[in-house]
Protein backbone atom coordinates (compact mmCIF):
# COMPACT_ATOMS: atom_id res chain seq x y z
CA UNK A 1 0.00 0.00 0.00
CA UNK A 2 1.34 3.43 -0.96
CA UNK A 3 2.07 5.86 1.83
CA UNK A 4 -0.59 8.52 2.46
CA UNK A 5 -0.89 12.00 3.88
CA UNK A 6 -3.14 12.00 6.96
CA UNK A 7 -4.78 15.37 7.53
CA UNK A 8 -6.61 16.61 10.64
CA UNK A 9 -8.55 19.88 10.61
CA UNK A 10 -9.17 21.11 14.15
CA UNK A 11 -11.39 24.00 13.00
CA UNK A 12 -13.96 21.68 11.42
CA UNK A 13 -13.02 18.62 13.49
CA UNK A 14 -12.76 16.59 10.28
CA UNK A 15 -10.04 14.33 8.93
CA UNK A 16 -8.95 12.94 5.58
CA UNK A 17 -6.45 10.49 4.11
CA UNK A 18 -4.94 11.77 0.86
CA UNK A 19 -2.56 10.61 -1.86
CA UNK A 20 0.96 12.00 -1.64
CA UNK A 21 1.46 14.84 -4.16
CA UNK A 22 4.21 14.00 -6.67
CA UNK A 23 6.42 16.87 -5.55
CA UNK A 24 6.48 15.51 -1.99
CA UNK A 25 7.17 11.87 -2.91
CA UNK A 26 10.98 12.05 -2.71
CA UNK A 27 10.91 13.74 0.68
CA UNK A 28 10.79 12.37 4.21
CA UNK A 29 11.52 13.62 7.72
CA UNK A 30 12.78 17.20 7.81
CA UNK A 31 12.74 17.61 4.03
CA UNK A 32 9.05 16.76 4.05
CA UNK A 33 8.01 18.78 7.12
CA UNK A 34 9.81 21.85 5.77
CA UNK A 35 8.40 21.35 2.25
CA UNK A 36 4.85 21.07 3.62
CA UNK A 37 5.20 24.03 6.02
CA UNK A 38 6.67 26.16 3.22
CA UNK A 39 3.85 25.11 0.85
CA UNK A 40 0.89 25.40 3.20
CA UNK A 41 1.70 27.85 6.03
CA UNK A 42 1.61 31.63 5.50
CA UNK A 43 5.11 32.72 6.59
CA UNK A 44 3.79 35.85 8.32
CA UNK A 45 1.11 34.03 10.33
CA UNK A 46 0.98 33.96 14.12
CA UNK A 47 2.56 30.65 15.18
CA UNK A 48 -0.22 30.01 17.71
CA UNK A 49 -3.02 31.05 15.37
CA UNK A 50 -5.33 29.21 13.02
CA UNK A 51 -3.01 29.42 10.02
CA UNK A 52 -0.06 27.54 11.48
CA UNK A 53 0.17 23.78 10.89
CA UNK A 54 1.89 21.05 12.84
CA UNK A 55 3.48 18.50 10.52
CA UNK A 56 4.78 15.16 11.76
CA UNK A 57 6.81 12.91 9.47
CA UNK A 58 8.90 9.75 9.80
CA UNK A 59 12.15 9.64 7.84
CA UNK A 60 12.53 7.95 4.46
CA UNK A 61 14.04 4.84 6.09
CA UNK A 62 12.01 4.81 9.31
CA UNK A 63 10.06 1.64 10.02
CA UNK A 64 12.62 -0.51 8.18
CA UNK A 65 15.35 -2.66 9.71
CA UNK A 66 17.99 -0.05 8.81
CA UNK A 67 20.14 0.68 11.85
CA UNK A 68 19.46 3.97 13.68
CA UNK A 69 16.58 4.94 11.38
CA UNK A 70 13.92 5.65 14.01
CA UNK A 71 14.04 9.45 14.23
CA UNK A 72 10.94 11.58 13.82
CA UNK A 73 10.67 15.10 12.39
CA UNK A 74 8.09 17.57 13.64
CA UNK A 75 7.73 20.89 11.83
CA UNK A 76 5.74 24.14 12.05
CA UNK A 77 6.35 27.86 12.25
CA UNK A 78 8.07 28.25 15.62
CA UNK A 79 6.49 30.40 18.35
CA UNK A 80 9.97 30.85 19.84
CA UNK A 81 11.91 31.95 16.76
CA UNK A 82 9.24 32.95 14.23
CA UNK A 83 11.21 30.89 11.71
CA UNK A 84 10.41 27.57 10.14
CA UNK A 85 11.19 24.76 12.57
CA UNK A 86 12.05 21.11 12.44
CA UNK A 87 12.61 19.37 15.72
CA UNK A 88 13.99 15.86 15.61
CA UNK A 89 13.62 13.10 18.20
CA UNK A 90 13.80 9.35 18.80
CA UNK A 91 11.20 7.22 20.53
CA UNK A 92 8.89 4.75 18.83
CA UNK A 93 6.71 7.17 16.85
CA UNK A 94 8.71 7.41 13.60
CA UNK A 95 8.83 3.64 13.16
CA UNK A 96 5.18 3.05 14.03
CA UNK A 97 3.99 5.99 11.92
CA UNK A 98 5.93 4.65 8.92
CA UNK A 99 4.52 1.13 9.44
CA UNK A 100 1.02 2.66 9.55
CA UNK A 101 1.65 3.93 6.02
CA UNK A 102 1.73 7.57 7.07
CA UNK A 103 4.08 9.74 5.03
CA UNK A 104 3.09 12.77 7.10
CA UNK A 105 0.41 13.81 9.56
CA UNK A 106 -0.71 17.42 9.03
CA UNK A 107 -2.69 19.10 11.80
CA UNK A 108 -4.28 22.42 10.87
CA UNK A 109 -6.82 24.94 12.17
CA UNK A 110 -7.91 25.74 15.73
CA UNK A 111 -10.98 24.33 17.49
CA UNK A 112 -13.79 26.72 18.43
CA UNK A 113 -14.82 24.91 21.60
CA UNK A 114 -12.74 25.36 24.74
CA UNK A 115 -11.96 21.72 25.44
CA UNK A 116 -9.08 19.28 24.91
CA UNK A 117 -8.78 16.60 22.25
CA UNK A 118 -6.70 13.57 21.36
CA UNK A 119 -5.90 12.14 17.95
CA UNK A 120 -5.67 8.43 17.12
CA UNK A 121 -4.05 7.21 13.91
CA UNK A 122 -4.16 3.71 12.40
CA UNK A 123 -3.32 2.52 8.84
CA UNK A 124 -6.86 3.26 7.65
CA UNK A 125 -8.14 5.97 9.95
CA UNK A 126 -7.35 9.14 11.83
CA UNK A 127 -9.87 10.27 14.42
CA UNK A 128 -10.36 13.16 16.85
CA UNK A 129 -11.80 12.56 20.33
CA UNK A 130 -12.54 14.85 23.25
CA UNK A 131 -10.21 14.26 26.19
CA UNK A 132 -11.27 15.10 29.74
CA UNK A 133 -9.04 13.01 32.02
CA UNK A 134 -5.50 14.05 31.10
CA UNK A 135 -5.50 17.84 30.55
CA UNK A 136 -3.56 19.52 33.35
CA UNK A 137 -1.45 16.39 33.87
CA UNK A 138 2.26 15.92 33.19
CA UNK A 139 3.70 13.71 30.44
CA UNK A 140 4.52 10.77 32.72
CA UNK A 141 0.85 10.58 33.83
CA UNK A 142 -0.20 10.62 30.16
CA UNK A 143 2.13 7.72 29.30
CA UNK A 144 1.04 5.71 32.35
CA UNK A 145 -2.69 6.31 31.87
CA UNK A 146 -2.57 5.49 28.17
CA UNK A 147 -0.65 2.26 28.71
CA UNK A 148 -3.56 1.16 30.94
CA UNK A 149 -6.25 2.57 28.66
CA UNK A 150 -5.05 1.25 25.30
CA UNK A 151 -4.46 -2.28 24.09
CA UNK A 152 -1.61 -3.18 21.75
CA UNK A 153 1.57 -1.38 20.86
CA UNK A 154 1.06 2.36 20.48
CA UNK A 155 3.33 5.27 19.85
CA UNK A 156 2.44 8.29 21.96
CA UNK A 157 3.18 11.97 21.39
CA UNK A 158 2.16 14.18 24.28
CA UNK A 159 2.39 17.69 25.71
CA UNK A 160 2.64 18.59 29.40
CA UNK A 161 1.46 21.68 31.24
CA UNK A 162 3.96 23.91 29.39
CA UNK A 163 2.41 23.01 26.04
CA UNK A 164 -1.10 23.47 27.39
CA UNK A 165 -0.10 26.97 28.53
CA UNK A 166 1.44 27.64 25.10
CA UNK A 167 4.85 28.52 26.51
CA UNK A 168 7.37 29.24 23.75
CA UNK A 169 9.79 26.61 25.12
CA UNK A 170 7.20 23.81 25.34
CA UNK A 171 8.26 20.57 23.69
CA UNK A 172 6.47 17.53 22.33
CA UNK A 173 7.39 14.34 24.16
CA UNK A 174 7.57 10.96 22.49
CA UNK A 175 7.36 7.61 24.24
CA UNK A 176 10.50 5.47 23.91
CA UNK A 177 10.55 1.63 23.75
CA UNK A 178 10.54 1.37 27.57
CA UNK A 179 8.00 4.06 28.39
CA UNK A 180 10.57 6.82 28.96
CA UNK A 181 10.33 10.12 27.11
CA UNK A 182 12.29 11.56 24.22
CA UNK A 183 11.70 15.18 23.29
CA UNK A 184 11.17 17.19 20.16
CA UNK A 185 12.68 19.83 22.32
CA UNK A 186 13.56 22.95 20.49
CA UNK A 187 11.48 25.82 19.18
CA UNK A 188 8.26 25.52 21.18
CA UNK A 189 6.39 23.01 19.02
CA UNK A 190 4.52 21.87 22.15
CA UNK A 191 2.89 25.30 22.22
CA UNK A 192 1.69 24.80 18.63
CA UNK A 193 0.16 21.45 19.62
CA UNK A 194 -1.33 23.15 22.70
CA UNK A 195 -2.78 25.97 20.61
CA UNK A 196 -4.66 23.33 18.62
CA UNK A 197 -5.91 21.88 21.95
CA UNK A 198 -4.40 18.45 21.34
CA UNK A 199 -3.17 16.79 24.53
CA UNK A 200 -1.83 13.65 22.91
CA UNK A 201 -1.60 11.65 19.69
CA UNK A 202 -1.55 7.86 19.58
CA UNK A 203 -0.42 5.76 16.63
CA UNK A 204 -1.17 2.08 16.14
CA UNK A 205 0.35 0.46 13.03
CA UNK A 206 -1.75 -2.74 13.52
CA UNK A 207 0.04 -5.29 11.29
CA UNK A 208 1.39 -2.67 8.89
CA UNK A 209 4.85 -3.08 7.41
CA UNK A 210 7.09 -0.85 5.32
CA UNK A 211 7.46 -2.17 1.76
CA UNK A 212 11.02 -2.65 0.51
CA UNK A 213 11.48 -2.56 -3.30
CA UNK A 214 14.66 -4.67 -3.27
CA UNK A 215 14.86 -6.61 0.01
CA UNK A 216 18.16 -8.43 -0.62
CA UNK A 217 19.99 -5.27 -1.64
CA UNK A 218 18.49 -3.52 1.36
CA UNK A 219 19.76 -6.18 3.77
CA UNK A 220 23.25 -6.08 2.28
CA UNK A 221 23.41 -2.25 2.41
CA UNK A 222 22.25 -2.33 6.02
CA UNK A 223 24.97 -4.83 6.91
CA UNK A 224 27.67 -2.49 5.54
CA UNK A 225 26.02 0.57 7.09
CA UNK A 226 25.61 -0.93 10.57
CA UNK A 227 29.19 -2.21 10.49
CA UNK A 228 30.49 1.30 9.75
CA UNK A 229 28.57 2.62 12.77
CA UNK A 230 29.66 -0.14 15.13
CA UNK A 231 33.30 -0.02 13.99
CA UNK A 232 33.73 3.73 14.48
CA UNK A 233 35.80 4.19 17.64
CA UNK A 234 33.51 6.98 18.80
CA UNK A 235 30.61 4.57 19.17
CA UNK A 236 32.22 2.85 22.18
CA UNK A 237 32.63 6.09 24.12
CA UNK A 238 29.09 7.21 23.35
CA UNK A 239 27.69 3.92 24.60
CA UNK A 240 29.76 3.99 27.79
CA UNK A 241 29.56 7.65 28.81
CA UNK A 242 26.63 9.03 26.78
CA UNK A 243 26.76 12.42 25.08
CA UNK A 244 27.84 13.84 28.45
CA UNK A 245 31.35 12.57 27.66
CA UNK A 246 31.70 16.04 26.12
CA UNK A 247 31.72 18.05 29.38
CA UNK A 248 35.40 17.46 30.05
CA UNK A 249 36.70 17.90 26.51
CA UNK A 250 34.73 21.10 25.85
CA UNK A 251 35.82 22.40 29.27
CA UNK A 252 39.45 21.53 28.52
CA UNK A 253 39.16 23.40 25.23
CA UNK A 254 37.98 26.49 27.14
CA UNK A 255 34.65 26.49 25.33
CA UNK A 256 32.19 25.31 28.00
CA UNK A 257 29.91 28.34 28.47
CA UNK A 258 29.89 29.05 32.19
CA UNK A 259 27.98 31.48 34.44
CA UNK A 260 25.74 32.81 31.68
CA UNK A 261 28.48 32.80 29.04
CA UNK A 262 31.04 34.82 31.00
CA UNK A 263 33.74 32.10 31.10
CA UNK A 264 34.78 29.07 29.06
CA UNK A 265 35.66 26.72 31.91
CA UNK A 266 33.63 25.51 34.90
CA UNK A 267 35.31 24.70 38.20
CA UNK A 268 32.75 21.95 38.90
CA UNK A 269 33.15 20.25 35.51
CA UNK A 270 34.38 16.93 36.90
CA UNK A 271 31.30 16.57 39.16
CA UNK A 272 28.92 16.86 36.18
CA UNK A 273 31.07 14.99 33.63
CA UNK A 274 30.21 11.86 31.67
CA UNK A 275 32.90 9.95 33.56
CA UNK A 276 31.33 10.82 36.95
CA UNK A 277 27.83 10.18 35.61
CA UNK A 278 28.87 6.72 34.37
CA UNK A 279 30.27 5.79 37.80
CA UNK A 280 27.11 7.00 39.58
CA UNK A 281 24.86 5.10 37.18
CA UNK A 282 26.79 1.85 37.66
CA UNK A 283 27.03 2.27 41.45
CA UNK A 284 23.26 2.83 41.76
CA UNK A 285 22.23 0.00 39.45
CA UNK A 286 21.05 2.19 36.55
CA UNK A 287 21.74 1.54 32.88
CA UNK A 288 24.74 3.30 31.31
CA UNK A 289 23.58 2.14 27.83
CA UNK A 290 20.06 2.45 26.53
CA UNK A 291 18.47 2.93 23.11
CA UNK A 292 15.98 5.70 22.34
CA UNK A 293 14.55 3.67 19.46
CA UNK A 294 14.63 0.03 18.39
CA UNK A 295 17.50 -0.77 16.02
CA UNK A 296 19.96 1.76 17.43
CA UNK A 297 23.47 0.30 17.53
CA UNK A 298 25.06 3.26 19.37
CA UNK A 299 22.86 3.37 22.52
CA UNK A 300 23.95 6.76 23.88
CA UNK A 301 20.92 7.08 26.16
CA UNK A 302 20.92 5.89 29.78
CA UNK A 303 18.81 5.37 32.91
CA UNK A 304 20.03 7.49 35.84
CA UNK A 305 18.89 6.33 39.29
CA UNK A 306 18.64 8.37 42.49
CA UNK A 307 20.61 7.54 45.66
CA UNK A 308 17.94 4.98 46.65
CA UNK A 309 18.36 3.15 43.35
CA UNK A 310 15.01 4.32 41.92
CA UNK A 311 14.85 5.61 38.33
CA UNK A 312 15.25 9.40 38.35
CA UNK A 313 15.65 10.28 34.69
CA UNK A 314 16.48 8.85 31.26
CA UNK A 315 18.08 10.28 28.16
CA UNK A 316 20.27 12.55 30.26
CA UNK A 317 22.07 14.58 27.61
CA UNK A 318 25.21 16.69 27.54
CA UNK A 319 23.47 19.91 26.49
CA UNK A 320 20.87 19.64 29.29
CA UNK A 321 23.56 18.87 31.86
CA UNK A 322 25.81 21.68 30.60
CA UNK A 323 22.97 24.23 30.69
CA UNK A 324 21.80 23.50 34.21
CA UNK A 325 25.36 22.70 35.31
CA UNK A 326 28.07 25.00 33.98
CA UNK A 327 25.82 27.77 32.66
CA UNK A 328 23.95 28.03 35.99
CA UNK A 329 27.03 26.94 38.04
CA UNK A 330 25.21 23.96 39.59
CA UNK A 331 27.75 21.19 40.28
CA UNK A 332 25.27 18.65 41.70
CA UNK A 333 24.35 15.96 39.18
CA UNK A 334 21.39 14.71 41.28
CA UNK A 335 19.82 18.19 41.28
CA UNK A 336 20.38 18.45 37.53
CA UNK A 337 18.77 15.01 37.05
CA UNK A 338 15.79 16.05 39.20
CA UNK A 339 15.37 19.22 37.12
CA UNK A 340 15.66 17.14 33.93
CA UNK A 341 12.84 14.89 35.16
CA UNK A 342 10.58 17.84 36.06
CA UNK A 343 11.20 19.46 32.68
CA UNK A 344 10.43 16.17 30.90
CA UNK A 345 7.21 15.89 32.89
CA UNK A 346 5.93 19.41 32.25
CA UNK A 347 7.22 19.16 28.67
CA UNK A 348 9.64 22.03 28.33
CA UNK A 349 12.95 22.27 26.48
CA UNK A 350 15.83 21.56 28.86
CA UNK A 351 18.28 23.70 26.88
CA UNK A 352 16.06 26.77 26.46
CA UNK A 353 14.78 26.67 30.03
CA UNK A 354 18.15 26.14 31.69
CA UNK A 355 19.82 28.90 29.66
CA UNK A 356 16.84 31.08 30.67
CA UNK A 357 17.68 30.29 34.31
CA UNK A 358 21.27 31.41 33.66
CA UNK A 359 19.98 34.80 32.49
CA UNK A 360 17.55 34.93 35.45
CA UNK A 361 20.54 34.33 37.75
CA UNK A 362 22.41 37.20 36.17
CA UNK A 363 19.29 39.33 36.75
CA UNK A 364 19.38 38.39 40.45
CA UNK A 365 16.18 36.31 40.46
CA UNK A 366 18.28 33.63 42.19
CA UNK A 367 21.97 33.07 42.91
CA UNK A 368 24.29 31.25 40.51
CA UNK A 369 24.68 27.69 41.79
CA UNK A 370 21.26 27.60 43.45
CA UNK A 371 20.10 24.22 42.17
CA UNK A 372 17.44 23.95 44.87
CA UNK A 373 16.10 27.33 43.75
CA UNK A 374 15.81 26.11 40.17
CA UNK A 375 13.85 23.04 41.31
CA UNK A 376 11.54 25.25 43.41
CA UNK A 377 10.83 27.68 40.54
CA UNK A 378 10.25 24.79 38.12
CA UNK A 379 7.67 23.24 40.46
CA UNK A 380 6.04 26.33 41.96
CA UNK A 381 6.16 28.71 39.03
CA UNK A 382 6.74 27.10 35.65
CA UNK A 383 4.46 24.09 36.26
CA UNK A 384 1.70 26.30 37.69
CA UNK A 385 2.11 29.11 35.18
CA UNK A 386 2.71 32.03 37.56
CA UNK A 387 4.02 35.29 36.12
CA UNK A 388 7.65 34.30 36.78
CA UNK A 389 6.95 30.79 35.51
CA UNK A 390 5.63 32.13 32.22
CA UNK A 391 8.57 34.53 31.81
CA UNK A 392 10.98 31.60 32.18
CA UNK A 393 8.79 29.22 30.18
CA UNK A 394 8.80 31.62 27.27
CA UNK A 395 12.54 31.23 26.99
CA UNK A 396 15.89 32.91 27.38
CA UNK A 397 15.00 35.99 25.34
CA UNK A 398 11.83 36.45 27.38
CA UNK A 399 13.81 36.51 30.65
CA UNK A 400 16.31 38.98 29.17
CA UNK A 401 13.52 41.34 28.08
CA UNK A 402 11.60 41.05 31.37
CA UNK A 403 14.64 41.87 33.51
CA UNK A 404 16.59 44.20 31.20
CA UNK A 405 19.61 41.90 30.81
CA UNK A 406 21.84 42.52 27.76
CA UNK A 407 23.96 39.35 27.97
CA UNK A 408 21.28 37.15 26.45
CA UNK A 409 22.74 34.19 24.50
CA UNK A 410 20.18 33.67 21.73
CA UNK A 411 20.05 33.74 17.94
CA UNK A 412 16.62 34.42 16.45
CA UNK A 413 15.41 34.27 20.05
CA UNK A 414 16.53 30.64 20.56
CA UNK A 415 19.09 29.84 23.27
CA UNK A 416 22.66 29.09 22.21
CA UNK A 417 23.65 25.63 23.43
CA UNK A 418 26.74 24.16 25.00
CA UNK A 419 29.63 25.33 22.81
CA UNK A 420 30.86 28.92 23.07
CA UNK A 421 31.05 30.42 19.57
CA UNK A 422 34.01 32.65 20.48
CA UNK A 423 36.38 29.73 20.91
CA UNK A 424 34.59 27.26 18.60
CA UNK A 425 34.05 29.65 15.74
CA UNK A 426 32.56 27.06 13.41
CA UNK A 427 29.63 26.77 15.82
CA UNK A 428 29.18 30.54 15.70
CA UNK A 429 28.63 30.28 11.95
CA UNK A 430 26.07 27.51 12.48
CA UNK A 431 24.21 29.37 15.25
CA UNK A 432 24.05 32.58 13.21
CA UNK A 433 23.11 31.15 9.82
CA UNK A 434 20.93 28.18 10.79
CA UNK A 435 17.40 28.43 9.43
CA UNK A 436 16.12 27.46 12.88
CA UNK A 437 17.79 29.85 15.32
CA UNK A 438 20.77 28.78 17.46
CA UNK A 439 20.91 24.99 17.28
CA UNK A 440 24.06 22.87 17.56
CA UNK A 441 22.50 19.94 15.71
CA UNK A 442 22.05 21.95 12.51
CA UNK A 443 25.77 21.92 11.63
CA UNK A 444 27.94 20.34 14.29
CA UNK A 445 31.30 22.01 13.62
CA UNK A 446 32.56 20.68 16.97
CA UNK A 447 33.59 17.63 14.91
CA UNK A 448 36.54 19.23 13.06
CA UNK A 449 36.96 22.17 15.49
CA UNK A 450 37.47 20.09 18.63
CA UNK A 451 37.04 16.34 18.17
CA UNK A 452 39.28 15.69 15.16
CA UNK A 453 36.43 13.95 13.37
CA UNK A 454 36.11 14.65 9.64
CA UNK A 455 39.44 16.56 9.60
CA UNK A 456 40.85 19.37 11.72
CA UNK A 457 39.95 23.06 11.62
CA UNK A 458 41.53 25.37 14.24
CA UNK A 459 38.59 26.33 16.49
CA UNK A 460 39.90 29.85 17.07
CA UNK A 461 40.82 30.66 13.47
CA UNK A 462 38.28 32.01 10.99
CA UNK A 463 39.79 30.01 8.17
CA UNK A 464 37.62 27.24 6.75
CA UNK A 465 34.77 27.74 9.22
CA UNK A 466 32.10 28.99 6.81
CA UNK A 467 32.76 26.15 4.39
CA UNK A 468 32.79 23.62 7.25
CA UNK A 469 29.48 24.85 8.67
CA UNK A 470 27.90 24.97 5.20
CA UNK A 471 28.94 21.40 4.34
CA UNK A 472 27.68 20.15 7.69
CA UNK A 473 24.37 22.02 7.44
CA UNK A 474 23.75 20.61 3.95
CA UNK A 475 24.62 17.07 5.05
CA UNK A 476 22.51 17.40 8.20
CA UNK A 477 19.43 18.50 6.26
CA UNK A 478 19.79 15.38 4.12
CA UNK A 479 20.41 13.04 7.07
CA UNK A 480 17.42 14.54 8.93
CA UNK A 481 15.29 13.51 5.96
CA UNK A 482 16.23 9.85 6.14
CA UNK A 483 15.08 9.22 9.72
CA UNK A 484 18.67 8.49 10.62
CA UNK A 485 20.08 9.63 13.94
CA UNK A 486 22.52 12.49 13.40
CA UNK A 487 25.21 10.46 15.17
CA UNK A 488 25.66 8.42 12.00
CA UNK A 489 27.49 11.53 10.76
CA UNK A 490 30.59 10.68 12.80
CA UNK A 491 31.00 7.42 10.88
CA UNK A 492 29.94 9.10 7.63
CA UNK A 493 32.71 11.71 8.02
CA UNK A 494 35.46 9.17 8.68
CA UNK A 495 34.46 5.85 7.05
CA UNK A 496 34.15 5.88 3.27
CA UNK A 497 31.80 2.88 3.21
CA UNK A 498 29.15 4.61 5.35
CA UNK A 499 27.53 7.19 3.05
CA UNK A 500 27.42 4.98 -0.07
CA UNK A 501 25.70 2.34 2.10
CA UNK A 502 23.14 4.93 3.20
CA UNK A 503 22.46 5.87 -0.43
CA UNK A 504 22.15 2.14 -1.25
CA UNK A 505 19.59 1.79 1.55
CA UNK A 506 17.48 4.61 0.08
CA UNK A 507 17.74 3.13 -3.42
CA UNK A 508 16.81 -0.38 -2.28
CA UNK A 509 13.92 0.89 -0.16
CA UNK A 510 12.28 2.78 -3.04
CA UNK A 511 13.73 1.06 -6.14
CA UNK A 512 15.40 4.26 -7.33
CA UNK A 513 18.90 5.30 -8.43
CA UNK A 514 20.07 8.20 -6.27
CA UNK A 515 23.77 9.16 -6.23
CA UNK A 516 25.77 10.87 -3.52
CA UNK A 517 25.44 14.14 -5.49
CA UNK A 518 21.65 13.82 -5.42
CA UNK A 519 21.79 13.61 -1.62
CA UNK A 520 23.91 16.78 -1.44
CA UNK A 521 21.45 18.53 -3.78
CA UNK A 522 18.59 17.41 -1.53
CA UNK A 523 20.28 18.95 1.52
CA UNK A 524 20.92 22.20 -0.32
CA UNK A 525 17.35 22.46 -1.56
CA UNK A 526 15.94 21.86 1.94
CA UNK A 527 18.08 24.68 3.36
CA UNK A 528 16.92 27.00 0.56
CA UNK A 529 13.27 26.08 1.11
CA UNK A 530 13.64 26.87 4.82
CA UNK A 531 15.53 30.10 4.16
CA UNK A 532 12.86 31.13 1.64
CA UNK A 533 10.15 30.68 4.28
CA UNK A 534 12.10 32.76 6.80
CA UNK A 535 12.72 35.60 4.34
CA UNK A 536 9.04 35.67 3.44
CA UNK A 537 8.33 35.83 7.19
CA UNK A 538 10.45 38.99 7.40
CA UNK A 539 13.93 37.75 8.30
CA UNK A 540 16.95 39.30 6.54
CA UNK A 541 20.72 38.82 6.48
CA UNK A 542 20.88 41.14 9.51
CA UNK A 543 19.28 38.37 11.57
CA UNK A 544 22.18 36.02 10.75
CA UNK A 545 24.49 37.29 13.50
CA UNK A 546 25.31 36.61 17.13
CA UNK A 547 24.31 38.88 20.04
CA UNK A 548 26.58 41.92 20.52
CA UNK A 549 28.42 40.65 23.59
CA UNK A 550 30.08 37.82 21.65
CA UNK A 551 31.84 40.49 19.52
CA UNK A 552 32.92 42.67 22.46
CA UNK A 553 33.44 40.52 25.60
CA UNK A 554 36.56 38.34 25.49
CA UNK A 555 36.00 34.79 26.73
CA UNK A 556 38.49 33.40 29.26
CA UNK A 557 40.73 31.41 29.28
CA UNK A 558 41.65 32.14 25.64
CA UNK A 559 40.35 35.73 25.78
CA UNK A 560 38.89 35.66 22.31
CA UNK A 561 35.86 37.32 20.73
CA UNK A 562 33.73 36.30 17.76
CA UNK A 563 35.09 38.26 14.83
CA UNK A 564 33.22 37.39 11.65
CA UNK A 565 31.78 40.45 9.91
CA UNK A 566 28.19 40.42 8.71
CA UNK A 567 29.52 40.52 5.12
CA UNK A 568 31.63 37.42 5.73
CA UNK A 569 28.67 35.71 7.34
CA UNK A 570 26.48 36.46 4.33
CA UNK A 571 28.81 34.39 2.09
CA UNK A 572 27.45 31.31 3.86
CA UNK A 573 24.52 31.40 1.45
CA UNK A 574 26.69 31.38 -1.70
CA UNK A 575 25.56 28.04 -3.04
Amino acid at each position, binding site marked *: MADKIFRVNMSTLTTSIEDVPKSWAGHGGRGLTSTIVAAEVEPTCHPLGEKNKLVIAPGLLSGTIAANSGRLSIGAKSPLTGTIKESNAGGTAAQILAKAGCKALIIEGLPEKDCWYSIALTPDSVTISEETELPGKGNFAVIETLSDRLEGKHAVLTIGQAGEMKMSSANISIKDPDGNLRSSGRGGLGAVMGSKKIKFITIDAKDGKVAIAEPEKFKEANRVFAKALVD*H*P*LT*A*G*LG*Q*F*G*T*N*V*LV*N*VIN*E*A*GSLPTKNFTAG*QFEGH*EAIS*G*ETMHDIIVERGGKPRHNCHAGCVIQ*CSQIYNDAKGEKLTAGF*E*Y*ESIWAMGADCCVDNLDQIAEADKIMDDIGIDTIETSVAFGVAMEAGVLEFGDGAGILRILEDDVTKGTGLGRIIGNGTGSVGRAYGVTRVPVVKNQAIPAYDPRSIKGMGITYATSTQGAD*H*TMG*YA*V*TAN*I*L*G*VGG*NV*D*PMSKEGQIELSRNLQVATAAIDSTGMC*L*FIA*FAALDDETCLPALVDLLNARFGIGLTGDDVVALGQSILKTERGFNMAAGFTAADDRLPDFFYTEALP*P*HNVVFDFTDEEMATFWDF
Partner: protein
Amino acid sequence: MKVTIKLFAFFRESRFKIENRDLEKGTTVGNIVDVLGIDRKEIGVLMINSRHTTLETELSENDILAIFPVIGGG
Protein backbone atom coordinates in the same frame (compact mmCIF):
# COMPACT_ATOMS: atom_id res chain seq x y z
CA MET B 1 60.63 19.63 34.24
CA LYS B 2 57.20 19.36 35.86
CA VAL B 3 54.23 18.48 33.68
CA THR B 4 50.59 17.73 34.61
CA ILE B 5 48.91 14.89 32.73
CA LYS B 6 45.12 14.53 32.60
CA LEU B 7 43.34 11.48 31.22
CA PHE B 8 39.69 11.20 30.20
CA ALA B 9 36.93 8.68 29.46
CA PHE B 10 38.15 5.05 29.33
CA PHE B 11 41.81 6.09 29.30
CA ARG B 12 41.36 6.53 33.08
CA GLU B 13 40.66 2.82 33.58
CA SER B 14 43.64 1.23 35.41
CA ARG B 15 45.49 4.53 35.09
CA PHE B 16 44.58 7.87 36.69
CA LYS B 17 42.57 11.07 36.28
CA ILE B 18 45.38 13.54 36.88
CA GLU B 19 49.06 13.20 37.79
CA ASN B 20 52.07 15.48 38.07
CA ARG B 21 55.23 14.02 36.56
CA ASP B 22 58.85 15.06 36.48
CA LEU B 23 60.07 14.57 32.91
CA GLU B 24 63.30 14.98 31.04
CA LYS B 25 63.59 17.90 28.67
CA GLY B 26 62.73 16.93 25.12
CA THR B 27 59.97 14.51 26.14
CA THR B 28 57.24 14.48 23.47
CA VAL B 29 53.51 13.91 23.82
CA GLY B 30 54.00 10.62 21.98
CA ASN B 31 56.62 9.48 24.55
CA ILE B 32 54.09 9.99 27.35
CA VAL B 33 51.32 8.21 25.45
CA ASP B 34 53.64 5.22 24.95
CA VAL B 35 54.81 5.15 28.58
CA LEU B 36 51.17 5.13 29.70
CA GLY B 37 50.50 2.14 27.44
CA ILE B 38 47.85 3.98 25.45
CA ASP B 39 47.32 2.68 21.91
CA ARG B 40 48.08 5.64 19.62
CA LYS B 41 45.26 4.52 17.31
CA GLU B 42 42.72 5.08 20.11
CA ILE B 43 43.65 8.73 20.60
CA GLY B 44 41.09 11.30 19.53
CA VAL B 45 42.15 14.62 21.02
CA LEU B 46 45.42 15.90 22.49
CA MET B 47 45.66 19.31 24.12
CA ILE B 48 48.47 21.22 25.79
CA ASN B 49 47.24 24.14 27.90
CA SER B 50 43.78 23.92 26.30
CA ARG B 51 45.08 24.11 22.70
CA HIS B 52 45.19 21.16 20.30
CA THR B 53 48.56 19.52 19.83
CA THR B 54 50.20 16.50 18.18
CA LEU B 55 52.16 13.43 19.26
CA GLU B 56 55.40 15.03 18.01
CA THR B 57 55.17 18.16 20.18
CA GLU B 58 57.84 18.56 22.89
CA LEU B 59 56.50 19.49 26.33
CA SER B 60 57.65 22.52 28.30
CA GLU B 61 57.88 23.31 32.02
CA ASN B 62 54.44 23.49 33.74
CA ASP B 63 52.53 22.30 30.68
CA ILE B 64 49.14 20.66 31.21
CA LEU B 65 48.67 17.77 28.79
CA ALA B 66 45.15 16.37 28.24
CA ILE B 67 44.68 13.04 26.47
CA PHE B 68 41.25 11.96 25.18
CA PRO B 69 40.18 8.88 23.23
CA VAL B 70 38.03 9.33 20.11
CA ILE B 71 34.82 10.76 21.57
CA GLY B 72 31.78 12.66 20.40
CA GLY B 73 28.19 13.43 21.14
CA GLY B 74 26.12 16.52 20.72
